[in-house]
Every structure is written in C-alpha cells, then in structure tokens.
C-alpha cells in the first residue's frame, strides 16, 4: 500500500539561482538545463531519520566539544530558534548540523590558508536534534569574517553553516545563518544570491532574552523547511 502525501513545491522565489555570476564558482558548477519535474513518490517522501539517540548533549556545545585545555577564544554566543514548516507547525526530532570558522575567521579545514590563528580549543562543528516544539540550541563563539578569492578584497560576512533534514529528502536544506548589522552582507555575493525579500530571512536577531548575564550573547534564528508533509491520504490503486 502506498501513502500519498501533499508536498508543496520548492519555492524558487526563496532560493538562489544555480548560476549567479557574481559568485564566480557558479558558472561552471550550476546545472544549466531546466530541472525535470518529478512528482514526489515514496522515495522523495521519506528520508533518513536521526533522532535524539544520535546526538549527545555536548555535541551542541561548540565551546566544549573540542576543548583540549581551556575555553576557545572569542565572544561566546547562544544560537537558538525553531524549525517550522510552511504552515507554521514545528518540525520536531530533526537533525541540525552546524560548522563555522573560529573567532579569528579561520576554519580547521586543511585547505583554508587564511593566515589567522587556529584555536586549539575549537573545532567549529556541532549538531543537535529539535525538541517537540521544533526548538534547537547551540552554544558557540561568534565566527570571524574571513577573506576569500572570489574578487579583489572579498570577505565573507560572519556566518554559521547549517544543515537540516526535516521529515523527508524533499525538505533537505543547507543554509548559512548571518548576524544582524554586518556591513559585509551588502557586499557578499553568496548572501546576495538569495532573492531580495527572501535573503533577509538568513539574518539572525539579537535577543536580550536569550542572552545570559555575564556569560554569552543570544541570537535567535528560525528556519522554515518545505512542508507540511503530514497529511496522509490513501491513494486508490
């Protein structure tokens, strides 16, 4: 027996185009032919299930999960928010994976040659699973800006990479969270590649409520995945 479920389309007015020439890696890498429509089957209406058993509590604390002999340098922050579907319903029990540069703007990655210091107490990777209200929470340090070779004097704004599954492979999302008031946003082709009116959704908000006194600044960032997926209907065979 097959269960058909409703699936709203991928919202191409919210997502960047495949070819965005200001981001110079796209012209040789983005598909050029029109996508072929595919009416979702069970293959697209399912996806990997990683629940709370797949993460440990320390995984979401980037200030501790790779510490060797002390705390990482930088401004401690808390990033929290909710994962929702397009109807506003929370997406519970879904995996969020994050990775980021350290406070000096340096990635641990071997190919990052930016001559800023590595931090022996900071890797910059973490993960957590949303709770029943779709809520997630990471503790980390604010990532630094860093130069990249896209064009002369190009710098990436401070950002945290985020990867989410949602209920199915059709709700898969990899994105980047930015910080409010960053002057580099106006100059960054990756941020600018998302359509005007949509890209602003990539900027977190400062929250005094989330901020912990004498400890860490708080930022909130809600994420909306494609969906809902949970209106099962039997299809006549």
């Amino acid at each position, binding site marked *: 027996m097959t269960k058909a479920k409703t699936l709203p389309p*991928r919202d191409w007015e919210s997502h960047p185009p495949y070819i965005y020439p200001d981001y110079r890696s796209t012209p040789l890498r983005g598909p050029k032919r029109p996508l072929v429509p595919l009416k979702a089957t069970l293959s*697209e209406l399912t996806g990997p299930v990683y629940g709370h058993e797949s993460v440990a509590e320390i995984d979401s604390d980037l200030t501790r999960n790779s510490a060797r002999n002390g705390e990482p340098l930088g401004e401690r922050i808390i990033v929290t928010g909710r994962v929702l579907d397009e*109807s506003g319903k929370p997406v519970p029990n879904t995996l969020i994976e994050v990775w980021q540069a350290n406070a000096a703007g340096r990635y641990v990655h071997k190919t990052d040659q930016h001559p800023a210091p590595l931090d022996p107490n900071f890797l910059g990777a973490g993960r957590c699973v949303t709770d029943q209200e779709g809520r997630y929470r990471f503790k980390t340090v604010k990532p630094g800006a860093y130069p990249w070779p896209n064009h002369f004097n190009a710098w990436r704004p401070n950002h945290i990479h985020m990867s989410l599954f949602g209920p199915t492979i059709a709700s898969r999302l990899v994105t980047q969270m930015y910080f409010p008031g960053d002057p580099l946003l106006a100059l960054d082709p990756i941020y600018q590649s998302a359509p005007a009116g949509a890209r602003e959704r990539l900027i977190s908000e400062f929250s005094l409520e989330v901020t912990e006194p004498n400890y860490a600044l708080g930022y909130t960032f809600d994420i909306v995945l494609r969906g809902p997926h949970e209106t099962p209907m039997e299809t006549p065979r």
Partner: protein
Amino acid sequence: MKLRQTPSQTVGPYFAYGLTAPQYGYPFTALASDQVADELVPGERIRIAGHVIDGAGQPIPDALIEIWQADSEGRYAHPSDGRASNQRFRGFGRFGTGTDSEHRFIFSTIKPGSVDGVQAPHISVIVFMRGLLTHAYTRIYFSDEAAANERDPVLQSVPSERRGTLIAERGQTATGTLYHFDIHMQGDEETVFFDV
C-alpha cells in the same frame, strides 16, 4: 499561517570537518559515511563510484554526495513506509569527493528492491558543493534492470536522449560488483536533475 521557506546557501568548501569528519581525518564523529549497509544486511552487495564533473570537464574535488535508498525488498526505513524495513538498514550515505586520489565518490551498499512494484530500483542522490547555491537532486538507476527501467514512470518522463545520464553501468572488479555513475553538472552529458 503561511511561512516562506528559508533560502538555501552553498555548502561551501569547508563542510568536511562538520559533515564527514572521520572520512577526512578530523576529530569529530559523523552520523553517515560511505558504508550504507554492513555485511549483515540482506541483499546483493554493490559499490557505486563516480566523478562529479564541472562544465570544463574537470572532476570536482570538493563535492558532497548524499544517497538515500530502500532496502533489498524496496522498503524505506521511515515512518511513512508502513512496511517495517530491515532494522539494520538506515539507507543513507554521505561522502565527499576530497579524499579519493581521483576525486571520486564511492559508496558500499546493497542493491535496492523496487519500492512499489511500479518504479524500477533506484537510489535518490543529493548533490552539494562550493559553487552550488541550492542542492541538486538526481537518481541512480541500474543498467542491469533494462526491463524495469523501460516501465519506470520517472525515467520515462525524461527525454529519451537524456535517460542514459541516470543509469549506472554495472561492472565487475576483483572486489565485487561496481556500478559506475558520473554526475555531469553541465555540458552535452549534463545529468538530469529533478525539480523534486
């Protein structure tokens, strides 16, 4: 209430220590790898390997490939699939093209069964890389399933001259069955990507 989708952004060049740390030798765990099925999962053992190739014909050394598949009886390990799938089998793999000397992705898995008796056996593929602002979906079909492929509604919806880009070529090596599946991002052989 109608909310709008959060925009996609590229996975960038530095995903490896966050998403595939053990593969690249970083000190962090990973939830998925190239080993999709261990030896206790029933089914025909296969490997699938290929390059991700850019518009200049060059292999891409910093792509991330994810695969999602049913077990050998066509069942998904997911609550929407009412048939209980094999407990040992999650069906998800993830591998970056940065560690193989030829910049290939390589997965060890089992050949999936037909999901519903209508679709031919296939594996869903999600492609990420620096320079790809939104991930791309494609599918792997199998060259030794010609009859099933002829009846597959998704494959048949693809213009016939492009269908071959979705079919992995079966071969034998000293270590077993190896399917070859290149992903061409652009050019005359551009892989069919789906608007899932």
